[in-house]
């Protein structure tokens, strides 16, 4: 196998959208991980399963319904969590199971969708179209701009809500914004790793980067680098060996985490 694969246009699209998604998941995921919301991505992904099933049933492009259902359910669950004082992990469990339940019922009603649903469950990065790629780039760009503009507010309210409030930051609005961005990010990323493995991209590169003991910006950059590395190498390796890209990407990310833990245990990471 040679560099020939890099000349295929489907591979260009896969790599371009893959890199964009890798960066997006790592940045949005960092805020979720630090808010002890690691599984929130997973929960939104599962609720998007309901949205996808709805789209397939209605004959609408499933990602559109997935966006609508995921964002709506993420915002609603956040509202319910605040109003009824439900803990974060319990609200995630509610969101996660209700999404799957809705999906299963709809699939049952329609008599089953067979193949289509599998590409959403496990990802299909090599099949992304030009339109998909443009959408991924546009959404990634938009979310990154919002994060850069509201960097201090996002970080401060993640670090300590009470102090952020006293500094005049609209913490509730920022919380909803993060949930909203997480909803968009998850659905955008479904094409890469599928519903089932999405939280891996949110969590693993960030957990790895945090071990390096650096400040916020450096941690974000390390996380993005690991995320991009996992996705690019994962796509290429999976194509060469004809294995599933989603699983390969996640395994590479886990390999980087294990390697980092090894380096840390060996005392090779300096404090600064």
């Amino acid at each position, binding site marked *: 196998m040679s560099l020939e694969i890099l000349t295929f246009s489907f591979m260009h699209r896969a790599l371009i959208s893959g890199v964009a998604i890798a960066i997006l998941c790592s940045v949005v995921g960092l805020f979720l991980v630090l808010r002890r919301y690691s599984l929130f991505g997973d929960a939104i992904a599962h609720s998007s399963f309901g949205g996808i099933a709805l789209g397939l049933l209605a004959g609408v492009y499933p990602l559109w319904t997935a966006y609508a259902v995921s964002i709506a359910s993420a915002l609603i669950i956040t509202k319910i969590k605040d109003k009824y004082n439900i803990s974060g992990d319990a609200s995630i469990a509610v969101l996660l199971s209700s999404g799957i339940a809705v999906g299963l019922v709809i699939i049952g009603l329609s008599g089953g969708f067979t193949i289509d649903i599998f590409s959403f469950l496990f990802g299909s990065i090599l099949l992304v179209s030009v339109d998909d790629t443009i959408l991924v780039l546009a959404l990634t760009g938009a979310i990154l701009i919002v994060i850069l503009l509201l960097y*201090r507010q996002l970080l401060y309210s993640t670090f*300590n809500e*009470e*102090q952020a409030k006293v500094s005049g930051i609209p913490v509730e609005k920022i919380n909803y914004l993060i949930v909203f961005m997480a909803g968009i990010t998850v659905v955008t990323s479904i094409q890469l790793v599928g519903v089932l493995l999405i939280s891996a991209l949110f969590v693993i590169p960030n957990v790895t980067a945090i071990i390096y003991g650096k*400040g916020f910006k450096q941690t974000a950059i390390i996380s993005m680098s690991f995320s991009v590395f996992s996705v690019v190498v994962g796509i290429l390796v999976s194509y060469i060996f004809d294995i599933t890209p989603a699983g390969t990407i996640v395994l590479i990310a886990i390999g980087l985490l294990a390697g980092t833990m090894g380096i840390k245990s060996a005392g090779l990471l300096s*404090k600064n």
Partner: protein
Amino acid sequence: MLKVVEINNLTVQYPDVKALDDISLVVNQGDFLGIIGPNGAGKSTLFASMLGLNTKYKGTIKFFDEDIKKSKNYLKQLGYVPQKPIFEKNFPVTVTDVVRMGLRKESDENKIDKILQQLWIHELRERRIGELSGGQQQRVFIAKALVNNPKILILDEPVTGIDQQSIDLFYSILRELNSKQKITIIWSSHDLDAVNKLANHVACLNRTLFFHGESEKFFSDDALVKQYSEASMQEHMHHH
């Protein structure tokens, strides 16, 4: 004398208890006010109300003659140091990152270095906040509170769980902020001796305000000090 804070008939009713009962209090510019009172006296409730974290109260709270329910502008003039800041130990922020959070304009970046030097934590600037001792962390949070050049500094029992050397350093910093930089300080403390040495005004709180005035008056009145000591001793016994 410019009124910085004016509290009128502040009452906070929790479902089972009246946390604050008809508190009225004026803090003038340049005051160094020590708020003392036993555990459960309502100090934290008073601060939460003043900081806009608790809005369920009767009465009015004004900063710079503006009702805080009508305008949040006062927060720009205010630095707040919480009792024990809660954050994850491995939260990936350096000392500089934390102080930067307090900054309102990105362009004021050079203020960070200045304040870190002033509080003798400049050499720690690239260290993660979670790696520092309690005393060092406390100074970082003061730096964060001060980086915007606030006119008022509010500190909620800020030396809980900190070693004596750090406490002494901390007190000398407070004294300098008040005397040289003319920052109005509102400070709650359990430490009567420290309040005696540092504060020029004292407010004695036990759900109601049973003394507010110059600290000399309070500390020269043996009956008052005794009354306070007994109240907090009873509370202390009650807690054990």
